[in-house]
């Protein structure tokens, strides 16, 4: 794989994770536990969808096959999606929603922070914009993990369960494959060890403050999302998200 192909692949990974989590959060529209939470969730989702568009536009330009950002979002099937397994997991109860958000936000924050220094200017520019937004996402989801973890007996138990439930999907966040190694060597993408160390450090600090039990380092981890091997949940998300543009191709006004 040459460097440009690797970069295209990496842009899809960034875009797909943002889009799928954005779509997941939108499922809570009208169903959030409180009106303030609903506004916050939808605003986070909006940020993520906007970021996905920025990544897709760049990917589409590099690909130069006449596909648009919309084509990338709506006309690829599950095996062509490169998102993290974590973000396609169901919303569950609010502890699950916020634990998933926190694990992702921590990864997203440190990834973007590194990408701001990327040797690719366009990549660095999109990352710099997204980083400002994600700083708020992380601040908010960290607070929820602490509030529920260090809250009542029931909220603590639910947050502990959520951490245990989702932990097996976090291995993918901090381990890299050939595509990412190649880009890291070229100064385009984050260094694996640094990212793993930053993520681990923050997650441990927040979980401890939230009085939650840390998970074993040698826990079994599911992987493959970044390579297109997904859990069954992704197909259902895409079915709902892609139905309209597939049923009415090229519709301009919906």
């Amino acid at each position, binding site marked *: 794989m040459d460097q440009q192909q690797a970069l295209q692949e990496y842009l899809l990974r960034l875009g797909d994770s943002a889009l799928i989590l954005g779509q997941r959060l939108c499922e809570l529209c009208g169903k959030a536990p409180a009106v*303030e939470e609903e*506004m*916050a969730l939808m605003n986070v989702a*909006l*940020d993520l969808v906007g*970021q996905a568009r920025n990544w897709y536009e760049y990917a589409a330009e590099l690909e130069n096959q006449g596909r648009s950002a919309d084509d990338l979002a709506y006309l690829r099937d599950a095996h062509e999606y490169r998102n993290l397994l974590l973000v396609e997991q169901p919303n569950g109860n609010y502890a699950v929603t916020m634990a998933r958000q926190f694990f992702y936000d921590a990864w997203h924050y440190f990834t973007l922070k590194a990408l701001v220094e990327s040797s690719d200017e366009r990549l660095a*520019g999109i990352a710099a914009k997204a980083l400002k937004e994600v700083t708020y996402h992380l*601040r908010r989801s960290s607070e929820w993990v602490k509030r529920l973890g260090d809250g009542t007996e029931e909220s603590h138990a639910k947050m502990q369960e959520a951490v245990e439930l989702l932990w097996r999907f976090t291995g993918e966040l901090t381990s890299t494959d050939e595509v990412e190694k190649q880009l890291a060597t070229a100064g385009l993408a984050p260094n694996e060890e640094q990212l793993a160390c930053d993520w681990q450090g923050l997650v441990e600090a927040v979980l401890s403050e939230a009085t939650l039990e840390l998970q074993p380092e040698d826990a079994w981890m599911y992987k493959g999302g970044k390579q297109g091997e997904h859990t069954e949940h992704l197909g259902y998300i895409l079915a709902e998200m892609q139905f309209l543009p597939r049923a009415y191709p090229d519709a301009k006004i919906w």
Partner: protein
Amino acid sequence: MPRSGKSAPRPAPVPGTGHLLASDRVPGNASDERLSEDQLLAVLQEVKDPEVPVVSVVELGILRHLEWQGDCLRVEVTPTYSGCPATELIEQMIQQALQAAGIRQVEIIRRLTPAWTTDWITVEGREKLRAYGIAPPQGSASKLSLLGQDEKIICPQCGSENTRRVSEFGSTACKALYQCQDCQEPFDYFKCI
């Protein structure tokens, strides 16, 4: 109540477009003379943020650059947030306002870098936000540290510093929801980014 026999009043024109219809792509006042930067800014001062209709695109700091290239005016605009749903609408409003001012060719360029910061909101823009009931961003975006707190947010209604954050996100992504503990009014705070 409307009287019979009298035609309904015409809808108010879209801000910045005068009385033109959407199909009037080249208005009657189209001219080959180039407007100066001051004249252009005066035109764009009339294009308001659709979600905060008291501040203009100039005061918000999202208008980044104006440049004539031959007969074409290049306008660089930067979105506030990656997912701001008003991005396309604002670009369209700028285009319409400039065409209404007689400029035949306008090219809008969406620029992402450097990323927009609330530091670019002008002093006048901040005052207008406050008068509208939105607390303007306080302090500098560069000082915002991760997991840290913003500075004391002042209630735009009564000026009290005794306020509390209700939610990190308000009615739009760019705002947080606060409440004044003195006058009890809830209000939006334009976050520092």
